């Protein structure tokens, strides 16, 4: 009981972390939806178009929720100082870094498949080191934490728009499946 109280995260922190986590997931999704849009416009009616846009938005919402829940779970499981004390800054920056690596992998996935252990092991180590380094920097420099929080706050309005579209998407998905 004592442990969970001492690790309790405020509602503000939780929502701010969610906003920051949802941002890269939605930016990636929207860019790629927009890339597909011209071919859809040729062949889909408005209602069909609403459907094909809604599913990926709902999936982006789901993906954001999973990542956020994972960060919340880590905050409870890991030692307090590692994550829970600076939850917003650390969860935001770790997910952004993860997203950056994921974007890179999206572009070079085919090449990675050709890699042997000589490339895979250093690559994996680089990823691990980058996470350790970022965590250490945020822990070490309070000013960095402040900047990251400020950036997360800056994303609130934008993410509200994404959330509105996600929820509209959810309604469309439900209506299309009734």
């Amino acid at each position, binding site marked *: 009981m004592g442990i969970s109280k001492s690790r309790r995260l405020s509602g503000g922190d939780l929502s701010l972390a969610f906003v920051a986590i949802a941002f*890269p*997931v939605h930016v*990636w*999704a*929207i860019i*790629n*939806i*927009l*890339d*597909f*849009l011209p*071919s*859809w*416009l*040729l*062949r*889909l*009616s*408005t*209602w*069909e*178009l*609403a*459907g*094909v*846009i*809604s*599913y*990926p938005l709902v*999936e*982006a919402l789901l*993906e954001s929720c999973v*990542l956020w829940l994972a960060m919340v779970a880590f905050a409870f499981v890991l030692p307090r100082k590692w994550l829970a004390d600076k939850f917003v800054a650390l969860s935001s920056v770790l997910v952004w870094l*993860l*997203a950056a690596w*994921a*974007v890179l*992998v*999206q*572009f070079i*996935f085919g090449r990675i*498949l050709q890699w042997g252990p000589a490339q895979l092991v250093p690559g994996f180590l680089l990823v691990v080191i980058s996470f350790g380094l970022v965590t250490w920097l945020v822990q070490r420099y309070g000013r960095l934490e402040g900047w990251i929080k400020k950036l997360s706050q*800056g994303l609130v*309005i*934008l993410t509200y*728009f*994404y959330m509105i*579209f996600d929820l509209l998407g959810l309604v469309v*998905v439900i209506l*299309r*499946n*009734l």
Partner: protein
Amino acid sequence: MRAPITRRDFLKFFSLLPVLFLPLPKRRLESPSSFQVSGQQNILIFVFDALSARNMPIYGYPRNTTPNLARFAERATVYHSHHSGGNFTTPGTASLLTGVYPWTHRAIHLDGTVLESFSDRNIFSSYPKDGFTYAYTHNLLAEALLQQFRSNIDLFKRTRELAINDPEYSDRLFPSDYNDSFWSEQLILRGGETKPSSLFGSLLYRILRLSQERKMSDVYGPQFPLGIPNLDDVYFILEDAIDWLSRELPSARKPFLGYFHVLPPHEPYCPRQDFIGRFQDDFKPVTKPPSLFSQGYSDEAINKNRMEYDEYLAYADAEFGRLYDAMVQKGILDNTTVIVTADHGELFERGIVGHETPVLYEPLMHIPLFISVPGQTQRQDVHSLTSCVDLLPTLAKLTGQPAPEWGEGVVLPGFGDGSVQNEQSVFAVEAKSSSKEGPLKKLSVAIIKENYKLIYYRGYPKTPATELFDLSNDPEELQDLAGTKPSVAADLQQEIETKLRQTHSF
């Protein structure tokens, strides 16, 4: 004084950008009622995907790619000048199933579907209501169409049921909204020309798929050293589908209409081990100059692809042979009309391999058609010009019904009233860069009338407006006569433009 636009303002507006791309609602055609007349005819339609008649010895090809289809042909009517309505699965299959050309049904895009008005105008809705309808396909593009017609299909066997992996999620998760959710699934997990929209989920999916592929490779790799037959993440072996059909046909509820659409010999060409190397011979096809739509393949690469296609076709033919033997043994041919055809052909010339191209040369349009009626023991040969849209009125005739009023085809020779229909023109349309509704601004259309074939291009600035060939004297389409026979070209072009105007496509 107005405040300057802040970064936050900019981001707010940016997030609203997708709204600008939403089109206004468009008027749809009204749905007609389907006709209902009783009939007692079992009909099995067996479709090979991307099977060009030009690669079959029965149509003059020097390699013996289809000995089993030749056996079947000995008790069937063989149509020697049969043509598809399009050059890839969606328009070709939709024309076969609806009896109209792509400018009318408008399934003209990859993953496209027909206009809503054709959801109830197809071979399944036209089959007598006291009969039973079955459908199966390996091809997810054809499945999108069958899903659209599923209210008229009594037993719709899903692609996954005869595949060796589980290729999709949307039909399980969103069965009431299959097509939209499938298109979204493609975007979310697989992408295409662009990246998938799911940043993390798609990577997990790819890793999962790789692990599945490795497991499948361990089991089937030795049998299929060039790759396990697949398309769009669906992996299958044709043997499973043939076994299922051989088992099901004798016990199928009768009378039935069965539509069975298998992927081979569609690319990627993955022949079984025992067919690899079968056609390493001296055959040298006619060399043709590169098309303006050339994909840059050298003649050597084209011939290598052709050889692999022929090997894959021979494998598909061998499996058809097993089905044919089972049908003979179990007496299926005594009470069932069996139709064997293809949705479109395949091209190996002019720098092009496959069928993802705007061109409409004969190897893409000329497809096989064999029809064996119950008790038929002699082969018949029909050389008249026929089209896949003729199948629907022919099936109506076979089941004792009037031809559907919407169809653009005629009853096939051999099934009609005996009148000669030499004057019929047949068409094929490629318009995947045009809008589903409204004018087809970018398209190619081929018309064949008597000996002449005109290919008409619209919206391609670098191509000539037309190409004209005399198919009786130049079956390889080597000599463009558009300049030397302008009146013939003009007449055929006018016929195409009239059709386009009639279908609001011009």
